[in-house]
């Protein structure tokens, strides 16, 4: 049986898409949480 060399392009497109998706889903709220309370007590620092 002949095995064809498969392209590695989908892996890198997948990483690109996953990063974009994470940024789109949680990005705005993450900026709001970490930066929006910059002048107050930091939520992560406790």
């Amino acid at each position, binding site marked *: 049986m002949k095995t064809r060399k498969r392209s590695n392009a989908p892996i890198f497109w997948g990483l690109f898409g996953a990063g*974009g*998706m994470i*940024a*789109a*889903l*949680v*990005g*705005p*709220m*993450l*900026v*709001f*949480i*970490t*930066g*929006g309370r*910059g*002048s107050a007590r*930091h*939520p*992560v*620092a*406790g």
Partner: protein
Amino acid sequence: VSKRRPYVRPMDGWWKKNPFYVEYMVHEGTALFVAAYAITLLVGLIRLGQGEAAWNGWLAAMQNPLAIVCHLAVLVAVAYHAFTWFKLFPLTMPPIVVNGKRVEPGVVVGTGWTAAVVAAVVLLGLVWGIAA
């Protein structure tokens, strides 16, 4: 050697020739703000690993008025990036077929925006729970 000089269409300023391309490039441009914010968070993580003094120093730097203004600019840019990320879905994703019928572009975009709002509320709730 061939003397033929085939015509090659110039691509200079290609994205300015169509309002949709301009909108797309603005979306891609906001990715720079996403990258800047990711680096800021990464620096924070490194400072956390360096001990309490380094971490408190980073927290103090984040309370600088300039840092707060930068965060506001990043918030606007990242929110626009997320908004257009889902708006572009019908063009950037292969068509989704359910029960042999193609899902309408409006439904795909609406689902994406809904997922983003749900994810944002869940994240806020998680952090709220940790901070409480």
